[in-house]
């Protein structure tokens, strides 16, 4: 096997089986199929600085973390939360994926269907980048990787970390990505198992190459996370949704899907009215799933 390319066997698995028509404006096809009513104009601009919108309540916020996750993605704090989250949510109820996968989907803000190898590549890629950056700052922190594997993947298999550290100093082998590729068997297998437990990896062969394209993908994922680092925090709802909410979101604020908005919004009850807290990114609500629970009548929200 040439260095820098890796062949693994993966089933082309649509990780999220269902593709929804949506409220999301990025899906014009939904409008073509007569679903335009979900988009239809229903907002009323009333006098008195009040915005009246119509939609549905999804669920109140249960907890909001305070981890500035991108800046210290390799930090024990984030890993601690990941571990805690996965322990509480083996399965991510809203979409049926694993909690582990849900966590990473939120991290890279990818809600749509992904094939197993793409998901694997991106999750691995982003972690490699993080660990690499951490390691560049504090070389001893490659131990984060060990913590990561041990806690999250539940494995006690040893990995040759001294080798990773050595590779950092070899010209042309600076990235953790490359060092991982030098011994991928263990890591990828465990990662895949955590992402897609029971996944039958025997029937199809995919090549996961250490290509520029893959590196770019990881970097662009990193950029997405970076951009989110300042204002956004992990938040969980009572309904079990996990996502990113504005930094100062409080428990009790309500995640709502409202007609005319491409993002779910968080509204804070204030008497019989609401205050707009901000938009949010919730896994399992980004592709119009909210439309599934649409009844005949929508709730009216008066936002002040």
């Amino acid at each position, binding site marked *: 096997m040439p260095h820098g390319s890796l062949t693994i066997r993966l089933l082309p698995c649509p990780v999220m089986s269902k593709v929804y028509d949506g409220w999301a*404006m990025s899906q*014009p096809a939904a*409008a073509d199929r007569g679903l*335009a009513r979900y*988009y*239809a*104009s229903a*907002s009323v*601009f009333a006098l008195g*600085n*009040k*915005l009246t*919108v119509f939609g549905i309540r999804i669920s109140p916020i249960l907890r909001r973390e305070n981890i500035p996750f991108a800046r210290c993605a390799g930090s024990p704090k984030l890993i601690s939360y990941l571990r805690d989250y996965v322990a509480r949510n083996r399965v991510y109820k809203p979409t049926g994926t694993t909690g582990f996968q849900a966590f990473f989907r939120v991290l890279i*803000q990818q809600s749509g269907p992904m094939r197993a190898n793409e998901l694997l590549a991106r999750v691995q890629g982003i972690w490699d980048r993080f660990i690499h950056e951490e390691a560049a700052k504090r070389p001893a922190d490659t131990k984060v990787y060990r913590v990561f594997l041990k806690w999250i993947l539940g494995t006690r298999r040893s990995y040759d970390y001294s080798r990773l550290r050595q590779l950092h100093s070899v010209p042309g082998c600076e990235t953790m990505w490359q060092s991982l590729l030098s011994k991928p068997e263990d890591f990828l297998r465990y990662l895949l198992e955590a992402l897609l437990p029971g996944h039958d990896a025997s029937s199809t062969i995919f090549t996961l190459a250490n290509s520029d394209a893959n590196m770019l993908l990881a970097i*662009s994922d990193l*950029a*997405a996370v*970076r*951009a*989110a*680092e*300042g*204002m*956004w925090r992990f938040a969980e709802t009572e309904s079990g949704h996990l996502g*990113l*909410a*504005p*930094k*100062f*979101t409080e428990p009790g604020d309500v995640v709502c899907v*409202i*007609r*005319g*908005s*491409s*993002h779910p*919004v*968080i509204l*804070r009850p204030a008497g019989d009215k609401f*205050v*707009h*807290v*901000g*938009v*949010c*990114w919730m896994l399992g609500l980004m592709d119009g799933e909210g439309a599934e629970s649409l009844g005949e009548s929508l709730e009216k929200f008066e*936002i*002040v």
Partner: protein
Amino acid sequence: MIRAPESLSDSVHDSATWRYFASGTWDLTFAYLGYIINRFDLIAGRGDDSLESGWWLSTMGARLQATHHKDHIYGLLGLSGISLHPNYSDSVSTADVYSQYVKAWLDVSKTRPTPSTSLPELFFLQFAGICLFPDQDLHASWVPNYPASAMSSDVKSI
């Protein structure tokens, strides 16, 4: 006066836009025009009317730095062509300008035979919210805060 910020956004969503802004003032003029034309073509190709393109353009105000808070809207009127009239006097507050902006948009939005595929009716909520813009003095929580948005590189990332 309105201009592109010196520091560029990391936002993936807007990377295409920012690439045009990245090249400095001179290039900006032509690149930006090219971008606008391209964008118009895209929207036209989808059958949306040019009015909507103007409104889409007006949202660029949330990405551009301006010397006056009202200029995030007023500074782009020449390009966007939306039906607002500049009023810099104290009788019209910044909050009023942004409220009028939303009102004008909703009036346009309501008359559209089919819903927009490029600009959600409530797009402005992305630029509003007390927790994304805790310092906002725009009266109501739903009023878009373009000045604050332009100052912050991360609020638009989702």
